[in-house]
């Protein structure tokens, strides 16, 4: 068991970040995926994670969604521990009940959408609000319809996912996540499974979110142009560590580390 006594039970002070990874370590058996990760995301900030395949980008998001347990360190969300809970004045690994409450401020969209195939677009967006938040059917429907309008999917609200294109499914998935009113949204390569001609309809929705809503966002993407347009900060991951991070302008035009330069020129060559 790691010694957690040095970790605060709660983050306090004037600028508590919305998300804080503090010395986070993730391993699969002997294989170290992330080693001593420290990363803060401020409230309302849009941070994009880039890096080569296998560098641990998806793992960062999955840990935050509590889809993976961590092997060291603590993750805080909105000042409160996410992966751990206070007990007798120290942090201990969170139990299922605590996790369920703690993850309620986080939403996630996946590469392969993962819509519920037996439910219509509307039902997909109502499920969480009705079952988890306890909204009435009527309230949940209003909220879902509003969000489906926002992502341009209101005309298709009664269709099942099998009848929707990839871009349409991903937009419904975004609406489904937003219906839970998360404070933090996670996007893991949400355009990677899409045909090139429909990528724009999904990126436009995300751009809209960035400009019109005060969400904190953490995104993984291989689309450098898109990342550059909308991010406040870019983190370049390499081998389970943040190799370099900076504003998009700085990182893309003036990368400091050799590995960043190599990665960016390789990506440019591929485009």
């Amino acid at each position, binding site marked *: 068991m790691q010694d957690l006594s040095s970790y605060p039970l709660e983050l306090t002070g004037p600028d508590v970040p919305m998300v804080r990874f503090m010395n986070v370590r993730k391993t699969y058996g002997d294989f170290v995926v992330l080693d001593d990760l420290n990363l803060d995301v401020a409230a309302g900030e849009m941070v994009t994670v880039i890096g080569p395949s296998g560098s641990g980008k998806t793992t960062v998001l999955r840990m935050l969604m509590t889809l993976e347990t961590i092997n060291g360190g603590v993750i805080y969300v909105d000042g409160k521990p996410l992966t751990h809970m206070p007990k007798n004045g120290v942090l201990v690994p969170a139990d299922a009940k605590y996790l369920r409450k703690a*993850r309620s401020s986080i939403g996630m969209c*996946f590469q392969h959408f*993962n819509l*519920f195939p037996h*439910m219509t677009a509307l039902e997909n967006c109502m*499920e969480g609000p009705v079952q*988890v938040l306890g909204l009435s059917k009527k309230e949940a429907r209003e909220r879902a319809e509003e969000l489906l309008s926002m992502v341009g999917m209101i005309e298709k609200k009664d269709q099942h996912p*099998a*009848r929707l294109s990839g871009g349409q499914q991903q937009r419904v998935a975004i609406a489904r996540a937003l219906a839970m009113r998360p404070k933090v949204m996670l996007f893991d390569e949400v355009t990677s499974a899409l045909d090139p001609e429909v990528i724009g309809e999904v990126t436009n929705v995300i751009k809209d979110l960035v400009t019109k809503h005060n969400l904190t966002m953490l995104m993984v993407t291989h689309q450098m142009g898109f990342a550059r347009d909308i991010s406040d900060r870019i983190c370049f991951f390499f081998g389970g560590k943040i190799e370099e991070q900076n504003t998009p302008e700085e990182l893309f035009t003036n990368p400091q580390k050799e590995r960043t330069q190599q990665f960016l020129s390789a990506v440019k060559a591929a485009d």
Partner: protein
Amino acid sequence: MQWDWQFTVEILPRMLWATVNTLMAAGIGYAIAAVLGLIFAMAQRTRFRSLTVTVREVVEFLRSTPLVLQIFFVYYVGPEYGVSLSPWVAGMIAIGLHYAAYLSEVYRGGIESVSKGQWEACTAINLSPAQAYRRIILPQALPPSVAGMGNYLISIFKDTPMLSVIGVAELMQAANAIGGQNYRYLEPYTIVGLVFLIISLFSAALIRSFENWIRRKLGMY
């Protein structure tokens, strides 16, 4: 020996009554198996390793020993331990347990066919595990399970004659009794065969259309 129509008509009411009993035995047995099978399947998916292993062993045991032995066991060995059951109750327990083992495997296959991404989406919208099962996973596990569930419905129906060994008044038992009393077996056994054939074919067709219906209903094409 010639087919005797008058005898046929005479025994028809008794055979009909036995058919009702057969259908009831199959129905009750299947209902027990369907519920217990789900419990067996879910028990193998919990975090508790010893529970998983125990249930696995029980399922394996039930599947690897003959149904007729299990029927005898419940009916004749039970009383030696002070558990005396009527033929009906003993028969339903035995057949329900036996088919629960098979159905649990069908359910397990269905549940495992639901992608990991569905579970992750459930976590992402913060459904509880029970809600995830009830609302998301089991409905999707149903369509791929229907064919297997239907096969076992027909199997259980065809296995009900085994209940005659402990004296449950189903079709086989009635046919044997009628045959023994009248020294005529052709008509009663032929009727048994026809009843089984007709009901099996009818059920198979019904199951197929149910499978299509459920897929359409759940929007999975």
